[in-house]
Structures are given as structure tokens and as C-alpha cells.
């Protein structure tokens, strides 16, 4: 219905700031999970800030760095690291899961000849690459 906006008195319903908790009277789990995914970035960013600060302390000498590392072993930091880890896993898992969206059965972007590679292979490839990269980084951290 096309309207003349100058002569028609329409009503636009406002959106609450807490729409992801209760959108106009109803809870939608997917909205909540989406916002949770967005929130993961905050924890990842905080972790990166901590990491950069730790690198900065290396320039202040071994003693300052060791003292800071010791403080990271305290309860609140461990709780923070656990939350950051869970959020990072959740974000990575859902982000890599998007690869199936670009590779829907029969009309995906990755093709072999004229045949579309089944989405499961693309997803497995993404998760596999993630796992390998994680193992390589973990190995480097634990051995170097």
C-alpha cells in the first residue's frame, strides 16, 4: 500500500533497548543468542588488551613481567579467562558455521567443475583448519 506520508497519520511502534531480551512482549531465544555472540567481542577485546599490556611489561624487565603473570593466576583472572575462552569458542563456532550458508546444497560458491561441494565438506574444512591452527599455536606456546 503506497501512501502519501503528508496526509496519512501512521503510527510507528518504538523498539525497546532491551529488544533482545523481550521484543514487544515476547522472548526470542535467537535474538538473545545473537546479542550474546556480539557480546563475545567485548571479552575477546579485553583479553587482547591484557595480552598487549603483558607484552608492554616485557619492556619493563623480567621482574615486572613475572609479577604480572603471577597476578594473572588469581581467582578473578581465572574466571575472566574461562568466560573469555567460552565466548571465543562460541564466537568461532558460530562464525565458522556460516560457511554452510555460502555453500547451500546445490548452489554454493565452492564448486568442482559444475558440481557444488556439499556444505558439510566446507564446514568440516573450516572447523578442521581452526583445530589445526589452534593446535599449532598451543604447541608453539607450550614449547617455546
Amino acid at each position, binding site marked *: 500500500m503506497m501512501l502519501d506520508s503528508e496526509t496519512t497519520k501512521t*503510527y510507528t511502534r518504538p*523498539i525497546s533497548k532491551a529488544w533482545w531480551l523481550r*521484543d514487544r512482549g515476547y522472548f*526470542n531465544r*535467537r*535474538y538473545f543468542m*545473537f546479542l550474546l555472540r*556480539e557480546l563475545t567481542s567485548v571479552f575477546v577485546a579485553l583479553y587482547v588488551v591484557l595480552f598487549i599490556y603483558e607484552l608492554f611489561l616485557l619492556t619493563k624487565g623480567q621482574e615486572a613481567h613475572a609479577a604480572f603473570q603471577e597476578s594473572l593466576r588469581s581467582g578473578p583472572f581465572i574466571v575472566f579467562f574461562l568466560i573469555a575462552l567460552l565466548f571465543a569458542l562460541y564466537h568461532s563456532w558460530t562464525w565458522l558455521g556460516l560457511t554452510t550458508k*555460502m555453500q547451500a546444497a546445490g548452489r554454493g560458491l565452492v564448486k568442482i567443475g559444475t558440481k557444488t561441494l556439499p556444505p558439510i565438506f566446507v564446514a568440516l574444512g573450516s572447523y578442521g583448519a581452526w583445530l589445526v591452527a589452534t593446535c599449532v599455536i598451543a604447541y608453539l606456546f607450550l614449547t617455546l
Partner: protein
Amino acid sequence: MSDLRTIKITVLRYRPEEEDEPTEQTYEVEFRDDWVVLDALNHIKDHIDGTLSFRWSCRMGVCGSCGMMVNGEPKLTCAAMLRDYYPNEVRVEPLVNFPIVRDLVTDMTDFMDKLKAVKPWIIREEEKPVSEGEYLQTPDQLKDYKQFSQCINCMLCYAACPVYGLEHDFVGPAAIALGHRYNLDSRDEGNQQRQHIIASKEGIWECTYVGECSVVCPKHVDPAEAIQQTKVATTTNRLKSLVMPWGNKK
């Protein structure tokens, strides 16, 4: 015929000549087992309250006219069975994220403008004469875009999309999916003409992938898939044009 049962239907009413904001009105409707929400609305209009306004046409999930919020979810009311809600109350509201014109009727102008902007038709750089026949297509080429051509413009995806609700400049799921449908069509040559809308900040890059558009789509068009595919294709083309500026940029 099964026994009649009575269900409460609460409808959001907005009569601009009488009130400044919407109010609620509850009706008690006797329904049969095979009634959908649209049947109840038609029953109210025909037998209880003739002033109730809503939009509908085909009653078979094809025209896309009867989209409304049913208990908070965007639904085609011709496909929402009352028995699935009974004995609870059913609450019917106009599609959210659109201005309300009257009762359950919303203003579609914004969607229609965006739909037109993505040029959802076949564009040829040069039309060949009719005497040369049709533009032929293989079944595999048809398969590339067929799913996205099933969109019935019901706008449920816009009502489900919080990004569109918060950022009205967003081109939105259905318009992008339909633009993508023509970009994928082997007969089309209009990709470049659509890119400045689809690949803009207000296009695919505004989407933060909530994914609800695909969940509510009654025709399984999966607009989220169209958006993600376009993001990958656009990025790949951009990289290709940087690495191989002499290559084909289409």
C-alpha cells in the same frame, strides 16, 4: 465436521482518526479445527466487528498479503492454524518495523522503494531480436537461483530483522535476496547496476547475521544465505580486481 471451540483473539487496533496510538481489542471466536488465524479475522470482520482492517488475498500462502505478528512471531495468517494455539489466547498485531496505517495494515512504501532499487528484473546490455529466440538456460543454471525466486514479498523477514528495525536504511533481506536471484541468473547482465545498492554499507554489510529472516520465511527462500553468499562473492571480486585489474570484473 469437528466440534466448535472458542478461542480468544486479541487484536492490536489503530484508528488514526480516533486515537494517537494503538489499543487492544479482544474477541471471542468460535472456530473449527481447520481454521487458520486469517479465518478468525474474516469471521470477526463479517460477524462481530466490521471496522477491523487487515490485508489479505489468496488465502493459500502465495500472495504474501496476510503477514502479521501472531503471538510475537511474523507469520502468514493463512498458514497459522488456530488449533496450534488453542486453548491459549492468540494475539495478532501488524508486522513490526513498519508504520501502522490502520489496525493490522502497515505501510509498505519503504520496502517497495528498496525492492525497486535492486532492479529485480533481467537486465541485458543489449537485447537480442525476438527472431533469435529465447535466452536458453540449463537445469543447473536454473538451480543456481530458483530458491531465491520463490520470494512472495510478504515482508515477514523485515519484521523479523532487528537490524532493519534499528537501522531503517538497511536494504533488508528480501530485496537483497531478490537482487541476488537476478545476479545469479545466467541470462542477466545487470550485476554491476545492482552492486552499488546490494554491496553498499546499507546493503549486505549492514547485516550482522541474526539469521531470523531465514527462520520466519514461509517459502524457505533463506535470505541470510543470499546475503552471506553475496558478501563472499563481493569480497572475492574485490580481491580479484585488486590482484588482476585487467580481469573480468563482472
